[in-house]
């Protein structure tokens, strides 16, 4: 009877020990796999520690498009089988580089391109017609002319004639701006800016790509028919605000003058 008890006890001990050995082997299997990736499991000692748990959870999360994982020591056997099976090579490939998910909480809102100029919020009179007016779109703060040329006014809408568009970016600051290369600035540290691109556009055509100007249908009120007026009075050709501030904080002014 005593012998039987002893055998049962020994069997139980072996079972427990065997299970433990098996468990350690499963953990070791995971650790060895992870050491060949960028997910560091710590020392490959068969012990399930915080580093091993974090590393395998990160790998499996990355493999599942950042779905949170909750892999515990009790899952080691199944995970080891997965890593040793068909999916092993793919998981190894995924484990060669870390992916950090994008978590943007800030509302970025609608954004317009630098080629968009939105002057829709201006109310102006209609029913006027001029064949030729000069127009200028100026980046107000920097004095950078984005566009100028000739525009016709037909029943309160604009018809662009010959005009020139200045593509590119204006520099910031109060430095002197060069007339013909207005997106360059002179500063103490040198001349800054990128090479501009002037695009001359013929009558009846628009720039390609379009420098989008959005205008209300009642946009234009004609300026006084006056060739000797000062620039300030000519600027009164547009009623109300004629400014537009883009998404980057640049303010543009649309001016029409010298109509005939």
């Amino acid at each position, binding site marked *: 009877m005593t012998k039987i008890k002893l055998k049962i006890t020994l069997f139980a001990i072996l079972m427990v020990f065997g299970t433990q050995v098996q468990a350690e082997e499963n953990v070791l299997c995971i650790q060895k796999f992870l050491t060949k990736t960028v997910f560091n499991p710590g020392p490959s000692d068969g012990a399930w520690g915080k580093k091993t748990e974090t590393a395998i959870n990160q790998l499996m999360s990355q493999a599942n498009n950042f779905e949170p994982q909750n892999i515990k020591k009790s899952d080691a056997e199944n995970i080891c089988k997965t890593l040793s099976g068909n999916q092993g090579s793919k998981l190894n490939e995924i484990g060669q580089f870390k992916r950090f998910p994008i978590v*943007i909480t800030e509302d970025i809102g609608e954004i317009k391109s630098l080629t968009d100029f939105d002057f829709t919020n201006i109310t102006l009179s209609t029913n006027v017609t001029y064949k030729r007016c000069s127009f200028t779109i100026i980046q107000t703060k920097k004095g950078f002319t984005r566009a100028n040329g000739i525009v016709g006014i037909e029943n309160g809408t604009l018809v662009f004639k010959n005009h020139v568009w200045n593509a590119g970016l204006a520099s910031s600051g109060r430095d002197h701006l060069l007339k013909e290369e207005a997106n360059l600035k002179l500063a103490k540290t040198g001349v800054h800016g990128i090479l501009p691109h*002037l695009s001359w556009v013929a009558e009846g055509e628009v720039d390609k790509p379009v420098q989008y100007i959005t205008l209300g249908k009642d946009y234009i009120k004609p300026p006084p028919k006056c060739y000797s007026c000062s620039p300030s009075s000519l600027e009164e050709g547009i009623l109300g605000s004629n400014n537009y501030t883009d998404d980057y904080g640049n303010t543009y002014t649309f001016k029409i003058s010298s109509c005939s």
Partner: protein
Amino acid sequence: MISRRHFLSIAAPALALSGYPVHGFTKEPIEGRIIVIMLQGGMDGLLAIPPVGDDNLFKQRKALVASNPLKLNPLFGIHPNFRNFSKMLKSNEASIVHATSFPYTGRSHFEGQNIAQSGSKLPFSTNTGWLGRAMDFAKITGKALSLDAPLLIRGAPEFDNFYPANIEKTRSPQTALIDLIKETHDGDVMIAIDKLSRGSMSRPSRLRARDPLSLATKAGESMRELNGPRVAVLTIPEFDDHSSIGSTTGHHPELFTLLDNVFYNLKTALKEQWDNTIVLTTTEFGRTVQENGSAGTDHGYGSVGLLAGGLINKSSVVANWPGLASKDLYEKRDLFATIDYRSVCSACIEAAFGLEHDFIIEKVFEDKKIARIYEHIFG
């Protein structure tokens, strides 16, 4: 809609378009588009995508961090001038690869640009480009538009080069000459030339660069056509800011705005073809982690790659972040590149042309050690 003939007549030398498709054999008949934006001069990846979660960033470069970066995740932020690109990140149409570079540490523009285009480990070891070779293997015939066909797409079959008649709006030869002069100098002399060159370019001249915004729209309009080109190459020069690089505002941030709007214009012009497109940036090297005495940064090693397009399913920042402590830097000065950017190029070829990774690295790059990063970007 713009016709191909019309497009060829008006587009500009800083843009190269190619890849009018014919029957080819790939693992799948993928009609994807690849657009490469070459950021010439060496973009400062730490200014574009600052690792705001790395405390050493602020220890190493005190003045060269934008004051209000948009936070992407606990480790990375993005310069506030990338507003459109940020939106693409938010809508899972863009991704970032950080601490990356082509396999080149020599810090020479000419060698670096050559390697970025050839995909070789040694500069000037081949006269074709990785993209051109990929087009060849994918059986995409080439039609390119360029004053000087970029090496990047040389190697494409039936490659055709268009020389525009209107040279007035081409890149200034003066600029190219100054680049050459700068290349032969370093240190304070190079900084001085950098300042002087900007002054010399300020003189009125009728030689102008076509702006990348226009070119992006033209490229997108042409590529969205059913039988339009499947490859385009755009160039944004002037990233070589040895002095006054800027932080929240300044020269590099202005170029970020420009690049951001190039992404926007491409997406807008491509319309539904955006879903079949991958846009990727390349640059010959990154810039030093610490600023120099002229509030600029010098030639470095690791930088960042920006990718956008409908072929991306899930946005992320891919990086084996090496750290910015002095001991972690390459030669104690540069961000270490832990990802070979050719892996990114291979992934884009795989996604857009359907070629197998093993085939790409063996035939296109002739380097079987290039790791596959497809799943990280497109998976």
